[in-house]
Structures are given as structure tokens and as C-alpha cells.
């Protein structure tokens, strides 16, 4: 199945960040974006969120208890495809550095944990380019859980994996669910050659490492923003 993935063939660069909730990846990708912007590079940021279409369908699905692992997976892939073809792909073709806060691996991990066959989900998402770099923010499960459960006690139904019937208690369910996601991420990290970042360190130290890797692996000079002739900023 590995050979079914397509490398990025556009002038742009695709940088994805993945990791458990609470791994600090959103903070890191935000700082990365600010650094690139302030240094004058062409950068575009995109995050994993649901469009109105998916939100309204999942709301109904939840209310009537309709969503199954298969339809959950398909509806999120529909949403991802829309975002991918509308935002990510055009920006890559335009030669931007695209920073994705969560990418297809988020879906691969979640859907596999819900019981969809892994090859099926991998094939489903095979239209989306492999990132040039996938930063995987890794930290001990317990640390991630502590960060999340302290900061945000109200867990959403699917977020807590309640549909899997792991536990009637949302917090308990979330812990078990995240544990399984964690295991799946670890397997994906090997299969898809993630760049692992130890996320159990001060924000500054992590950011320094991330920037160094980017400078090392990408010829940033190619991504300097140029102002078209006749335009003024």
C-alpha cells in the first residue's frame, strides 16, 4: 500500500504537523507560520476543521445515532477533499509553503481505530500528496492527557470516542481512545517516515529544532515572496 502514495509534484512545499491533542502541535505550527511570514516567505496555513456541510450532517448523524465507522470516515474524507482541492492544491501549485495543522494521517489514525480496514482508508486518501515533511509531535500519552483534561473538561461525543462504546464516562472513554490513537500514530510514523519531534520540552526549544529542520530540508530562498511589477504593498 505504501507505493500507492503520491509524492508532491508541485513547485510548492507541503509541511504537515500531526500528533495527539495536547501535543502542542498547533502552537508550534503557529510559530512556524509567523517566522516564515515575518521572514518574507510565501506561506499558507490550513487546519483540520469541518465545513458547514459536514457539520450539519454530523449533527443529524449524532442526534439520530446514524454515523457508523464507514460513514464517519467517508463524510470526513469528503470534507477533506473539498479543503484539499480548494485550498491546499492551488496554493501548492502557486508555489507556496503550505502548513497543514493535521493532515490525512489524522483521519487514518482515527478511522483505523474506529475499525475501518487500514488499506481501505489509505486508498481513500491516496489522492492527497504525501507531505514533504510530516512533523510528528510525540510525547508520553499521560502528559498529553493531563494537558487536555486540565484545560478542557467538556469533551465532544466523537472527540471522546464515545461512539466506540469504550466507556460510558466521557473522560475514561477519551483516555482509552487517545491511547489507541497514540498506538496507531506510532505505526504510521514508521510507515510514512514522519519526522519525530520530542514535544515534552519547552516551546522555544521545540520551535528552534523545527525551524532548523525546515531550513535544512527546504531551500527557503525559492519561496521568497516577490511583489508583482506595478504592485505596492
Amino acid at each position: 500500500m505504501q507505493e500507492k502514495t503520491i509524492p508532491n509534484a508541485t513547485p510548492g512545499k507541503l509541511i504537515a504537523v500531526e500528533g495527539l491533542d495536547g501535543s502542542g502541535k498547533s502552537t508550534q505550527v503557529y510559530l512556524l507560520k509567523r517566522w516564515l511570514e515575518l521572514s518574507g516567505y510565501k506561506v499558507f496555513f490550513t487546519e483540520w476543521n469541518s465545513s458547514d456541510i459536514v457539520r450539519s450532517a454530523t449533527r443529524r448523524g449524532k442526534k439520530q445515532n446514524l454515523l457508523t465507522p464507514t460513514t464517519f470516515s467517508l463524510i470526513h474524507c469528503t470534507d477533506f477533499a473539498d479543503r484539499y482541492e480548494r485550498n491546499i492544491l492551488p496554493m501548492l501549485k502557486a508555489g507556496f509553503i503550505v502548513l497543514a495543522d493535521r493532515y490525512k494521517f489524522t483521519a487514518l489514525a482515527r478511522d483505523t481505530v474506529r475499525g475501518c480496514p487500514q488499506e481501505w482508508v489509505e486508498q481513500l486518501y491516496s489522492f492527497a500528496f504525501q507531505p514533504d515533511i510530516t512533523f510528528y509531535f510525540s510525547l508520553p500519552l499521560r502528559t498529553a492527557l493531563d494537558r487536555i483534561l486540565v484545560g478542557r473538561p467538556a469533551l465532544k461525543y466523537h472527540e471522546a470516542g464515545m461512539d466506540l462504546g469504550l466507556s460510558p464516562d466521557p473522560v475514561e472513554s477519551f483516555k482509552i481512545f487517545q491511547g489507541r490513537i497514540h498506538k496507531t500514530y506510532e505505526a504510521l510514523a514508521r510507515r510514512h517516515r514522519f519526522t519525530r519531534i520530542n514535544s515534552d520540552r519547552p516551546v522555544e526549544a521545540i520551535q528552534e529544532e523545527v525551524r532548523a529542520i525546515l531550513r535544512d530540508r527546504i531551500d527557503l530562498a525559492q519561496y521568497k515572496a516577490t511583489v508583482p511589477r506595478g504592485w505596492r504593498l
Partner: protein
Amino acid sequence: MNQPRTFYGKGIPGVATRDLKGKLIVLEGPDGSGRSTQIALLTEWLERRGHAVEHVGLKRSTLVANELADAKQGNVLSPRTLSLFYATDFADQLEHRILPALRAGFIVLADRYIYTLMARDIVRGADLPWLQSVYSIALVPDLVMYLRVAPQKLMERYIYRGRELDYWESGMDIGYNRSWYDSFIRYQSELHRTFNRLQAVYGFVTVNGMRVPRAVTRDLQTHIESVISPNG
């Protein structure tokens, strides 16, 4: 007996095909080929003979039918997004309508199935292996019949019934031609060619739909009898 029931691929997690005692019968064919008329006639015939019948079709899921209709209205989704949307609609009906009905021993009459969805996408540039993988969740039907009607004939039927050409059924989103008529003929011809390709893979029964409804019904009934009668 017929062959044991299977999915095209791994199917739906946790579903045992042994329990699916009913029959899944699919009627494929373009809009205007007489599908709805035939399904009504076949339902009457089956019910008269004491069979319980369930109907499924495209865009009929509880989960996303409304959203899908909205999305088509605006024509803002890319072909792949629309394709996955239809796959979601299909999966929802498969799990909540088709499988339960088959478990209960119903005859499920499907007004189109994955083949129309695949053909439409192939005409719009999708690749077959990807589609086959997406639809590996689908159950292999007991019988698939394709009502063949030439594009010119379809056009005549539209005109006689005073119906307007449909944007999607004319393939206007593809941009073949600004003329609806030319686009319709070209799109329907491409679909037909694609169905022929799919037939080689999936082995449909082709039924000539360009005859009086009664004659078509008799043909369909003969094919259905061969899969529902116990000594097949």
C-alpha cells in the same frame, strides 16, 4: 442455490454476509430509460407473489441527502468531493437500509447502485482502481440489469414529456459544449461507453429499453425469476 454472498472488498466492518437472506436486485440505466416505471411494475409483480420489497436509490440517505442536494444546487464542489459525497450517501443506505432489509429476507430493488456513481466519475476523470477501492464496501448484488437506451432516444423522451434537460444529466459541469443538446448527447454517449467497460468487469445483464414498457418488464421478470426461484 446461488453463489455465497460477498462484498467487493472487505466490506463493512463487523457485517456477516451469512445472515443476508434476501435478494439485492439492481436496475441501472440513464434518466429517461424507464427505470422508475419498471421499478413500480416490478414491485407490484413481486408483492402480488408475496415478496416483501424495499427500495433504495441515489441521494436518498438520511445522513447526507439534504446536504448533497444543496451542494449540487450550487455546483461548487470539485468532482472528487462530489464523488465522495455520493459514496457517503451510498454507505449510509447500505448500512441502514440495504443490509437490514436483506437480513429480514426482503427483496431490495435498487434504483441504480455503485455503477452509475462510478461511471459518472470515470467520465469526469476519476480512475477506476480508486473508485473500486472506495466501493469495496459494497455488497455484490444478486442481479444487475442495465436498461440500454440510445442518447437520441433519451432526448426524444425528454422532449415528449415536456421535461427540461437536467444540468447534471447533460454533463454541463464538464464543459464539453455550451449547447445543452450537444452536451447531453456527448455526455450520455460517454456514460454509455463507460457502462460497456464496467459491464466487462461486473457482468451486468443488458436489457434493450427502447421497447414498450410491458416488453421490457417481461424481460426483467425473466431475469429476476432466475435469481429468486429456489431451483434457480
